[in-house]
Every structure is written in C-alpha cells, then in structure tokens.
C-alpha cells in the first residue's frame, strides 16, 4: 500500500531563517506531487506541483521554492522566511495525472 510522509511535523522558525520541508511517498512510482499551504480556517492554496524528477511548476511566485531530486521525494524550501509564511503545509500525490489526491499528515510552520 502507498504511504506519504512529511517532516518535520511542527516547526517554529524566526523571520529570515531558511526552511526545508520534506515529503516522501512509498509504494508507488512516478507520482504527481503537490505542495499546498493552508491558512487557519481557509482552503488549500496550491504552491507547487511536479510531474517528474526535476520538473516543477510554480503557482505562487513568492520566496518559496520546490525541488524534486528523486522520483518519490519532494522538498519545499526558502532562503529567508517571512511572517506570512506561517501556515499548515501539506504534501499530496496522485498516481498518473488525474484522480483523487492523497495527503500527508502536514507540517505546522510558525514564523516568529
């Protein structure tokens, strides 16, 4: 069966510090991968998606970036965090290019 992992689960970082969030998927190959951010009481905002290794599409031009160094690994990064980067970050995958998404447990990021 397929499993998706995210870490860390919780992170508190000062403004201006770097960020690295990791997402890995097990039990499938060549998934489409997605990064979302969810503000408190709000819906999901798509940040990045990837259809393959090294292929990243950006939906929100901010101080965030994403990389996919391996087939089942997706990384969200920032060189300098802003207060507005606080939120709940979710990674998701689908098999192929369409169908239901399966989400990881999320990372709660607080920028102070």
């Amino acid at each position, binding site marked *: 069966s397929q499993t998706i992992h995210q870490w860390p689960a919780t992170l508190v970082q000062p403004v201006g510090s770097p960020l690295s969030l990791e997402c890995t998927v097990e039990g499938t190959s060549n998934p*489409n991968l*997605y990064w*979302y951010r969810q503000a408190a*009481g*709000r*819906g*999901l905002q*798509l940040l990045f*998606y990837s*259809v393959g290794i090294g292929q990243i*599409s950006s*939906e929100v031009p901010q101080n965030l970036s994403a990389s996919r160094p391996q087939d089942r690994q997706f990384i969200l990064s920032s060189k300098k965090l802003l207060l507005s980067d606080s939120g*709940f970050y*979710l990674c*998701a995958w689908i098999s192929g*290019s*369409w*169908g*239901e*998404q*399966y*989400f*990881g*447990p*999320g990372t*709660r990021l607080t920028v102070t």
Partner: protein
Amino acid sequence: EDQVTQSPEALRLQEGESSSLNCSYTVSGLRGLFWYRQDPGKGPEFLFTLYSAGEEKEKERLKATLTKKESFLHITAPKPEDSATYLCAVQATYFNKFYFGSGTKLNVKP
C-alpha cells in the same frame, strides 16, 4: 477563472439531524470533483470522486451528488464523530492542478 465555492462556511447540527453541504464550481472542462474530510491538525482524507453530472456515491451516512454546476454532500442522521471540515476540489480537463473550496466546518452535537 476556475473556482470553487462552498457553503455554508459552518454548520451546527444536532445528532440525527440530516442536512446538505454545497459545492459550486466554475471550471473549463471538469475532469473530476472530489470530496475530502479534514480533522483538526491533520491532512485531508479522501471521501469521493464524481466524474459526470447525475453521478452519485455513498459511504455510510454520506452521499455525494453532482450536477453540471454544483455538488452536494448529504449527511443522513449524523453522529458527533462526523464533526470535521469537509473540503471540495475540482480538477480541470487539461491541467494537472486542483482547485479547492474553503470548506464547510461541520459540528454535530450529541
């Protein structure tokens, strides 16, 4: 512009009091409409996929329906454990992206 709107934002029900959640969408070619359940502090959990108008799916006390412009999530005789935020999402035909609504927060009181 492709978008998804959910209503109401919040819904409080007594245990056993049936109701419906609405998801209206505008998208240039619907590939699929998806319902998710999200508990506080957790990732969304997949519930249903609907592909074409007239389609219905059921799971326990939940039933999802789809028309050309909206979807309904019917909750029959809800229990307190059904309390959660329910999210709706659509995928357009020619894109790999998904558009999410802001969700309906359901609270079922015993």
